[in-house]
Structures are given as C-alpha cells and as structure tokens.
C-alpha cells in the first residue's frame, strides 16, 4: 500500500537532525538533575537508548516528547527549539510517544482507542480509519481490533501502545521500554517493525535489554547519570569490551566496560 504524498513529504528539510540537544539539562523534583548537560544529535534511524536503572532515560524521553520542559540548555526538534511554545502543536503532530507507564481507557476497543489518539493528533478525519487499520495491522492486532482493552493481555496492551504511537506516521518516534511484556515471538516481530520504521523516521527506543539493541538498532546511545557515555554502532560498543569484563556477549561486555569507565561505582545489584 502506498501512502498519498503530502506537501510535508516533498517539502525541503530545513534541519540536519530530527533531535538536537545542546547542553540539555532537566531537573526533576528537588534539584535532582536527571539529565545533566547532554549534547546529542539523532537523525533518521533506529537508536537504542541503553543505561542502568535511574540513568535518566525516561526523563530524557519525556523531555523529547515535550511532557517536561528543559531547565537548562536547549532542545531542538525538527530544527525548532521546544522553548517556543507557539510551535508546540506543530511539533507534536510529528511525534509518536509510548510512555513507560501506558495508561488507557479500559472500556474502549483497540480500534476506538487508536482512533481517539489519531483524533487527538490532529489527523484529518477522512484519513483516520485507514491509518488506524494500518497501525493495528502493523502491530499484529487486526484480529483483536474490536476487543475491549480490558480483555487484552499485557503484551497486547503494549502493542496497542505501539499502534497509537505510529498511527500518525511520526517523524520522531519515542518508545520507552516497548518490549516489556512481549513474548519472544512478538519481540522478533517488533524488532523487524523497528527496523522498518527506522528507515524513514528517527526512532529512539529505550530498553534495558542489550540484545534488543543489537538486533534492531542502527546505533546505540549509552546514557548514565544524566550524561552521554557513548554513541556509536553496536559493533563499536562491542569493541569497547574485553574478555575480563562481566557479561555474556561482546555487547554486554562493552556496556559494562563503558559504565565502569564512566565512574559508575554501583554494584551489579
């Protein structure tokens, strides 16, 4: 199926990176710097956001989704600073977001929920039914589209979350722990969906599973204590590790090597 070409698709891009953060600082609660002076540029592709618990991954994703406002530095989306609030509506039309804690309406069916989100995303009414059908098919829920949300398993709810995030064909797709609750077969399917989405848009996937990143992501962003530790391909991450580092795979060893190198003094537990 081909999508109709809109003015947006043929318009020249006036930015080099979909996401551009310069010295980005986000404080959460009482002066806790969850993101601390981050410089990061992300373009088209699937980017895996890795880091230990409490590294600030969720805060970073919520800031990119415009839930939180930066307290310092600047964040540009599609070349526009998020500080310019008059532009928020336009930016948000081009963002897809799956929060870590995905809240939904239990009495809605899958199709109703995705339709409702499509309406909230300012999609033209005549495009909504087709886009909803396509999103639901892409996450493999076409046969459950008329089921109520409360009747779905945890993995299916997660897939509805992914469907609502991609329904507006976003240019920036932010997924916070999307693979939680998916069984191995669904995880494989999801990885190929991620690769497909990363060909046309900027996808940022936060995960704690190193193997998700290896299989689905074009590059890795390693994040710890609110700072960028490493950005590169998964091969480059694997090359950072040596055999004496803890870990079961080259990637895990590279991950441990970089985190211990960043002054991370926590124990493994």
């Amino acid at each position, binding site marked *: 199926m081909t999508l109709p070409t809109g003015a947006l698709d043929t318009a020249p891009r006036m930015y080099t990176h979909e996401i551009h953060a310069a010295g980005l600082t986000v404080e959460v609660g009482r002066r806790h710097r969850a993101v601390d002076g981050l410089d990061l540029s992300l373009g088209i592709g699937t980017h895996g956001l890795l880091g230990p618990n409490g590294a600030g991954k969720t805060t970073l994703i919520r800031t990119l989704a415009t*839930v939180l406002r930066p307290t310092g530095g600047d964040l540009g989306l599609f070349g526009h600073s998020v500080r310019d*609030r008059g532009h928020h509506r*336009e930016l948000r039309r081009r963002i897809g977001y799956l929060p870590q804690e995905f809240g939904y309406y239990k009495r809605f069916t899958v199709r109703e929920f995705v339709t409702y989100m499509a309406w909230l995303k300012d999609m033209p009414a005549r495009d909504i039914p087709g886009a909803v059908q396509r999103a639901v098919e892409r996450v493999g829920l076409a046969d459950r589209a008329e089921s109520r949300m409360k009747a779905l398993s945890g993995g299916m709810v997660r897939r509805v979350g992914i469907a609502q995030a991609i329904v507006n064909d976003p240019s920036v797709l932010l997924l916070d722990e999307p693979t939680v609750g998916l069984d191995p077969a669904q995880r494989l399917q999801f990885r190929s969906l991620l690769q497909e989405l990363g060909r046309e848009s900027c996808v940022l996937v936060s995960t704690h599973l190193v193997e998700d990143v290896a299989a689905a992501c074009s590059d890795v962003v390693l994040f710890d204590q609110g700072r960028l530790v490493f950005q590169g391909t998964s091969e480059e991450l694997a090359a950072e590790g040596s055999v004496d580092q803890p870990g079961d795979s080259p990637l895990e060893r590279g991950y441990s090597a970089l985190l211990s190198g960043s002054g991370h003094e926590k124990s493994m537990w």
Partner: protein
Amino acid sequence: MSAKHPTDGLIGRYVRGGADLPADELWAVEAHLEQCTHCRGRLAVAVADVPEVTDLLTAVRSDLEPALARSVPAPPGRRRIPLRATPAMGPWLAMVVGVSVVAVLLDRVAGWAANTPVVLLVAPALPLAGVAAAWSRSLDPAFELTSVTPQAGLPLLLKRTLTVLAVLLPVHLLAGFLTGVAVAQWLLPSLTLTASAVALGGVVGVGRATAALGTLWTAAVLAPALALGRPFLLQADQLPFWAGALAVAVAVVLIRRHTYTTSATLR
C-alpha cells in the same frame, strides 16, 4: 508546471521504458506527469497497448491479492466514540446533573430557602466541577499520552469545557424554568466562573483554579445567601459586573493561549 504537454510520441517512448530518451527529456516528462492529470490520463491510455507494462501490473496485482484478502477491513457502522469528553468524565457529569436535580427538588418540593432559590446558588458553580474533570491527571488514565498530543492545551481544554456546558445548560434551563429563576441571572455568573477557571488555570493549573473559585463562590455567595437569606452578588442590577468579568476572563485566555501546552496548566 509548464503549459506545454508532451507529444503522444514522447509519452509512447516513456511508456516503453524511456531507454531511447535523453535523461533530461525523461525527467521533464516525468515531472510533468506528476503535475498534470490530463497527461496521466493520456499515459493510462498509452499503457494499455504495451504488453510488458500490463503484464507487470497484472503480476503485481495477483501477488498482492492473497495479502489483501487476509487483511481484516474495518467493520462499518461502529459505535461512535465520545471524542470531546475524557472517557472518565461520565461519572462527574452524572454527579453534577444529580446535584441540579436535588436543587430543583429542594426548591419545588421542600420549599426550602424560600427567598433564595437553591438552583440560583448552585447552578453557576456546578460547571467548575466539570471543568476540573475535563483536565485532570487523576481522572484521565491516559493523561501522559493525551497531554502531549497536538490537541492538548487550550483546544482540548475548550472542547471538553464546552462539552460540560452543553450537558449542563439544558439541565439548568429546565431547572430555572421549574423554579422561576431568570435565565440571565444564573447563566451569566455560570459562564463567568467557567471562563475564569480556564483563565486562572493557565496560571496555576486547572485543578487549583477550580478549587479556588469553588471556595470563593461558597464564601462570597453561598454562605451569605444561606445565612442572610439574600444572594448578594446575584441581584439583577449586578449583571453588568458579571458581564465585565466574563470579558476580562475571555481576554486573558486569548492573550495567554500558548501557555496552555505546558504541564504548568496540568496541576
């Protein structure tokens, strides 16, 4: 777009793959075809005579058909979903309508507070409860998602607030009719309080704004009216005051319309 259409010969060569066309001419034909419906029609006619292209199209179609048959089409005639209200607002609206009914019963049946109709005292403040429900983190399970959609902020807040008013106004019209209270006497304060809640909500958050205005209403109008038996701020000659306050509130909302997209209005 040039007004010059490619000749039939040129389109014929384009259909056969364009191998004998210079690259610049090929591009020009293609660029023109993208813009010109008339020439795409001519192209469709020309294609029908070329077996290589028709065979290719047939092959693609027959390859796709099994996949198309497998996909489940959207069933027609589905339940309409309530787009303009939070799905969680239902119980709140029911409660507010219930309070109105009780007010009417108090006035009509019990004959209570004979010189101050209860409907007049509660009707203006009731939409506040609905506005609070319209934009609340605790009542909307999908708030994290809905609060960063393009509709979030003022457009969604206004749509949900208007939904509240659309439900409440007919109820209060009926209540006013049953108890003999003039429409303007409750409608104007009602709209003023609602608009003030939205305006103040842009500064301190909608939840706090509705709570503050509800308290103010109770302290300044409800309590004195019940204690003294005379509603101070609801006399007919005070209507210009309410109209002025309404105008100020609407102006504040319009001036500050961009501030509603941030989470400061969500507390």
